[in-house]
């Protein structure tokens, strides 16, 4: 049995669908059994609201939730657990920064995002621009969809307060040269936010080594439950921000005239948090941390290379994103001359291939790449050579069916 099929056995949906070629992990990765079991165990053994109820279920829930925070901190190599804010997802985490950090900006301050951003790291900044009178700068992409570092000097200035970019494109798989971004941002005193939504399913992260200030991701993209995500922030950066959402749990004291706010991390967690989901996410991350990522990366890269090679042999196929696999995660988006990705994906579904076609919530990037929509095959640790072979046969069949 191949290593991928050993891993695959840990995913209930994949185990129940042996014929399925699931190549849509960039949209949602499948949930690992450890995460699903943790959710069920929590709900059946320790379900209670958190924040210091003194009955034993509440104690259990509190401890599980606090431990989940520590486990996430370990996955990110964060300095401390209080730097980990649980949110409902990456989008909520990014909006949190756009509001809380955004509230510290003055008209004329600038935020730099890139043309490659997912709408979730694009629209919140447009909304901030319109709300707060700041300027929004757009780092262009190269012809292969990579952030163009050559444009950095021109776009960064002393007024730039934040650079908010993706760590990995959800369309092209292109990895961002984070070190270059961080160095350039530091030269003008700007903070750096990294949208890690696509990175986390490819292994544990090290926010300290990355040298950034904020990091956002979602549980459902790293083998955990939906409904939960994380904002990590440097303690001293977070501590200087006002809260975003108001409600239970985030206060120090509420009085009719004026309220005061709790310390980190609770200041940014208004209301009952997604408790069981946080516990499930932590279990997924623990499971990930025990894997051999050198091996997995080698396999993911090999599958990506095989897919690219096979697809390019089919007449009419054009690949979006970097040539080769060195600078990309195994996310392969492609266009077929004269065919619409919805039709292509529909035929592929008929061949038990799950791909997504559309604009992938990245219309500015697609515009830059000159397409309205594309088909995307995204590989994760449970995929193997059989998936690649099926993809290539499927795309060839789609061309025949649709021509």
């Amino acid at each position: 049995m191949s290593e991928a099929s050993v891993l695959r056995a840990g995913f209930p949906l994949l185990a129940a669908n042996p014929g399925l070629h699931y190549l849509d992990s960039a949209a949602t990765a499948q949930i690992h059994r450890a995460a699903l079991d943790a959710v069920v165990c929590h709900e059946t053994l320790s379900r209670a609201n958190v924040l210091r109820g003194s009955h034993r279920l509440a104690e259990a829930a509190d401890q599980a939730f606090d431990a989940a925070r520590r486990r996430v901190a370990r996955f990110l190599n964060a300095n401390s657990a209080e730097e980990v804010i649980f949110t409902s997802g990456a989008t909520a985490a990014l909006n949190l920064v756009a509001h809380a950090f955004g509230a510290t900006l003055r008209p004329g301050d600038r935020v730099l995002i890139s043309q490659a951003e997912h709408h979730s790291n694009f629209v919140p900044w447009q909304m901030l621009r319109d709300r707060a009178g700041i300027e929004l700068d757009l780092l262009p992409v190269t012809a292969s969809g990579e952030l163009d570092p050559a444009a950095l000097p021109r776009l960064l200035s002393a007024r730039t307060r934040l650079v908010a970019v993706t760590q990995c494109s959800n369309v092209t798989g292109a990895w961002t040269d984070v070190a270059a971004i961080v160095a350039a941002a530091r030269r003008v005193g700007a903070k750096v936010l990294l949208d890690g939504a696509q990175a986390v399913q490819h292994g544990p992260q090290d926010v300290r080594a990355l040298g950034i200030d904020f990091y956002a991701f979602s549980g459902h993209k790293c083998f955990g439950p939906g409904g939960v995500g994380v904002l990590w922030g440097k303690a001293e950066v977070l501590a200087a921000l006002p809260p975003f959402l108001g409600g239970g749990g985030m206060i120090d004291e509420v009085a009719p005239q004026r309220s005061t706010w709790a310390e980190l991390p609770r200041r940014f967690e208004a209301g009952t948090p997604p408790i069981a989901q946080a516990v499930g996410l932590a279990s997924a991350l623990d499971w990930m941390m025990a894997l051999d990522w050198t091996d997995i990366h080698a396999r993911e890269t090999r599958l990506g290379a095989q897919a690219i090679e096979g697809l390019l042999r089919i007449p009419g196929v054009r690949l979006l994103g970097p040539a080769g696999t060195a600078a990309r995660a195994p996310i392969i988006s492609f266009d077929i001359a004269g065919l619409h990705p919805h039709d292509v994906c529909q035929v592929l579904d008929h061949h038990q291939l799950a791909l997504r076609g559309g604009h992938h919530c990245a219309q500015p990037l697609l515009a830059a790449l000159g397409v309205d929509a594309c088909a995307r095959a995204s590989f994760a640790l449970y995929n193997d050579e059989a998936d690649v072979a099926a993809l290539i046969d499927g795309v060839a069949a789609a061309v025949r069916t649709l021509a």
Partner: protein
Amino acid sequence: MSDGLELYQDAIKRLANAAYGASQLASADGEAKLNNPLCGDRVVMQVALSNGHITAIAHQTKGCLLCKAAASLLGARGAGLDAAAIDAATDALEALLHGQAAAPADWPELAMFRPAHAYPSRHKCALLPFHALQAAMRSRIGDTR
């Protein structure tokens, strides 16, 4: 009907590729542009009207086969129809997509969209040109959305 996939019969591909009405009117009495925000597909429908009946129809369609086939069908059959007839055709297409077995006698071509009833995510693709034409019939030039 290669591949056991009923949806992509030759008829629908031929209709889509024929692209009847794929053009632009020099002067239109009604016009509407509709987006499918979920995929970025887009249809612009234009009509020239006389007494509420279509005298000329044109569309610019960016979309999948289903969307193009639907637009092409309207391009081929739209002339002479009024808003009520377009509404009736739209209702008939919706009914087919929701599982009704047979197309109405005056719109036999709609039957080719019936296999899409198994794929709810694709219903909007076929309906987009119809909804755009409905909107165009009701628009005055200048207040399209």
